[in-house]
């Protein structure tokens, strides 16, 4: 009798052990532009994701196995992206991560949507910490897609009221943006938010992206309009040229922008940038002690303080970590639908506030920081004597924008 029991226990043990021994590792594929003309914007995301994965693995990984991060270069090209997607899928990736280019994000989102329809049971999740286009959670919203970045509407909603509070938003505002969907969204956001704040838009212009070399005509226009504030979503060469033209002309306006912190911008603009307002997902000065601890930890792993967009993928990954913790399966397999459902309800308390995922359109909700360029800042930026002095941390309730009408999400059966 005892022997029977012992044998049966041992047999059961032997039967169960193989399952434990074959715990499936979660593979995450990061497909991004690492070479080619736009490669520079991707580096912060790459470093942020690497840091995030390391933190997940330090805490034990998923299913008891370390999470595997595979990196693919799509060279910024649409056709190569599809190649890399196929390579990632055949290498066993279940979560695809991509940032920056909204065009490529849209392509991947659609590809994964079609793939998931055609391959039931082997679905993939698309984890997108950087692309801004609102369409991704509007017409293209999708149960398997998760968006972690802000967009022009969210950012402006945080920036304009804060500027108004601080008395930096004058009565006459000039709106200058780039002529493509992102800039067009910014223009609309600025119009709405400025009207709500009680000021007037005295001029609005869209210009070609990264093509205009001489912004002095635009500055002359701004002067002509009598504006005392300029709101712009420009980035890269465009914001550099705009700020320098404003500085060179001696025009006294307050600028509200999103993208003065990219590499090479502040150093090239110089002191003409002082007094400009920046809205961003993170500020090194925010979060008190928790923020400082995070900054130092990031520096010890990656080699520099988190700058630019790096905190965004980090916090997104931390949210994923919390979701993964509640999506562990008893049989230690990777159940992507369970992970997606866990992601929907997940949240993460970052040093500056709570990050959470909205169920209706899979847009993340998070706090934003508004800062001002100043020589008074605690952390100096881009090798200059200036930095971004924290003005305000705007809580998630105030930054959230309503769910888009066009989003009709089809949910799979549980």
């Amino acid at each position: 009798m005892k022997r029977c029991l012992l044998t049966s226990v041992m047999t059961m043990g032997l039967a169960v052990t193989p399952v434990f021994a074959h715990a499936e590792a979660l593979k995450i594929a990061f497909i991004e532009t690492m070479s080619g003309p736009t490669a520079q914007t991707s580096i912060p995301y790459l470093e942020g994701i690497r840091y995030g994965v390391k933190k997940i693995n330090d805490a034990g990984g998923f299913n008891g196995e370390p999470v595997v991060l595979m990196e693919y270069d799509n060279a910024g090209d649409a056709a190569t992206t599809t190649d890399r997607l196929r390579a990632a899928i055949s290498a066993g990736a279940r979560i695809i991560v991509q940032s920056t280019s909204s065009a490529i994000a849209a392509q991947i989102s659609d590809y994964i949507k079609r793939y998931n329809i055609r391959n039931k049971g082997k679905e993939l999740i698309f984890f997108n910490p950087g692309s801004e286009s609102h369409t991704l959670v509007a017409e293209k919203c999708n149960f398997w897609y998760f968006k972690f970045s802000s967009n022009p509407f969210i950012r402006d909603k945080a920036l304009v009221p804060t500027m108004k509070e601080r008395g930096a938003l004058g009565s006459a505002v000039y709106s200058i943006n780039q002529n493509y969907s992102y800039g067009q969204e910014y223009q609309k956001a600025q119009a709405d938010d400025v009207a709500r704040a009680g000021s007037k838009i005295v001029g609005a212009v869209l210009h070609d992206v990264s093509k205009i070399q001489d912004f002095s005509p635009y500055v002359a226009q701004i002067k002509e309009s009598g504006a005392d504030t300029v709101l712009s979503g420009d980035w890269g060469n465009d914001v550099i040229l705009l700020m320098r033209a404003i500085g060179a002309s001696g025009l006294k306006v307050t600028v509200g922008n999103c993208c003065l912190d990219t590499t090479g911008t502040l150093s090239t603009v110089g002191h003409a940038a002082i007094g400009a307002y920046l809205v961003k997902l993170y500020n090194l000065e925010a979060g008190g002690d928790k923020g400082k601890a995070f900054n130092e930890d990031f520096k010890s792993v990656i080699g520099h303080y988190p700058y630019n967009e790096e905190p965004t993928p980090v916090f997104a990954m931390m949210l994923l970590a919390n979701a993964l913790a509640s999506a562990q399966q008893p049989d230690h397999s990777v159940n992507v639908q369970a992970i997606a459902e866990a992601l929907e309800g997940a949240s993460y308390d970052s040093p500056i506030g709570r990050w959470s995922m909205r169920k209706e359109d899979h847009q993340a909700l998070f706090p934003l920081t508004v800062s001002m360029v100043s020589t008074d800042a605690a952390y100096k930026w881009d090798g200059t004597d200036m930095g971004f002095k924290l003005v305000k941390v705007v809580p998630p309730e105030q930054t959230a924008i309503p769910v888009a009408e066009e989003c009709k999400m089809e949910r799979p059966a549980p």
Partner: protein
Amino acid sequence: MRLLTVVLAVAVLAAAPLFMTSYLLGVLTNGLIAALFALAFNLLAGQAGLLSFGHAAYFSAGGFAVIHLMKAVESGRVSFPTPLLPLVGGLAGLLSGAVAGFFATRRGGAYFSMVTLAMAELLYGLAPSMPSILGGEAGLSSMRMPWLAFDFGSDVQVYYVVLAWATVSTGLLYVYNQTLLGRLTVGLRESERRLSFLGYDTHLLKIVVFAISAMFSGVAGGLLVFSMESINYSTLGLGTSASVILNTFIGGSSVFLGPAIGAVFVTFFGSLASDVTRNWLLYQGLIFALIMMFWGDGLVAKAADVARDAAAGRTTGLVRAIRMLPAGVCVGFGVVLGVELLSGMLNRDYRAAVERSGAWPPITVFWRPWHPAAILTWAAPLVAVVFGVLLARLATQRRKHMEPPRVLGSETP
């Protein structure tokens, strides 16, 4: 003989899914599309002698036409056989090519190139303002609908459709060469004035050739959209026009299949090299520049020449090519090593690591760590390049006592 090689090649391509991974099959699909685009481009550039710098416009016209039709089929408004979708791409290419060609072909040479460049740039500049036709930044996307027994959901089915279209189009382009129109096209390049003296309306002729070239470009664009099920207006940019130029001339525009082989080669090189290094664009540019300097007719033409000579018994070309091989390997090794080391050291990640640890960590190239402080690290690429150039000099030196004297008129033109 030739027909046999062609049949064999097609058979090998048809059997590709059996021995290629899904990833490589995807690369081959892109390669075939690029090959068709290059052949279409070469019709104008190589045969008619009209170098177009804006062929992205007609390629994209085909692509956008197909995506709109695909969306219409997907929503059920229209019924159209899925594998025939690229037909609409060809139609869009034909129409846009006819219109553009009318204006562009009024003059030849540099003016023609400038006009095509200007048209494509203008279209690209205006693209963000046409969201209803071209989609916004996120572009347009759709899904292939099933037709008859096929659901077109697998990559293998897509590959076969692309292969079929590429083969048929290539065949048509080849047959075109044998027709009167094909001969006239070559005549445009050789001597337009003589053609007009013979009574042909050269402007009309150029428009027709332009339109046909644009038509097949549109088919290629349509195939790309068929394969990727999405498109956005970045395909209108200079990058697309530049890549077809690179593909065509690396292969060589004087041999019929030169551009196609060049396109497949560059596509594979791009995919495989970008997995290994971030400097692959630089290498691609260097290869292109070197080919333009030394083998202006393109690699395929050069290889075909050497092969033909060798078959006829004149082996000097072949011998020279074989002797150049070690030189090429040396120079290639030296350049790649030098570039990788330099770019590794000037990289931000590396500089951050230096700041963090205080020392200069080694950089791994060719599976071996190289220390920046070691002399070997810098001597190796330098010596390799110098040695390679010397070898190349030796290889191309005429050893007068080994070659028979050249008699004028005895060589094939």
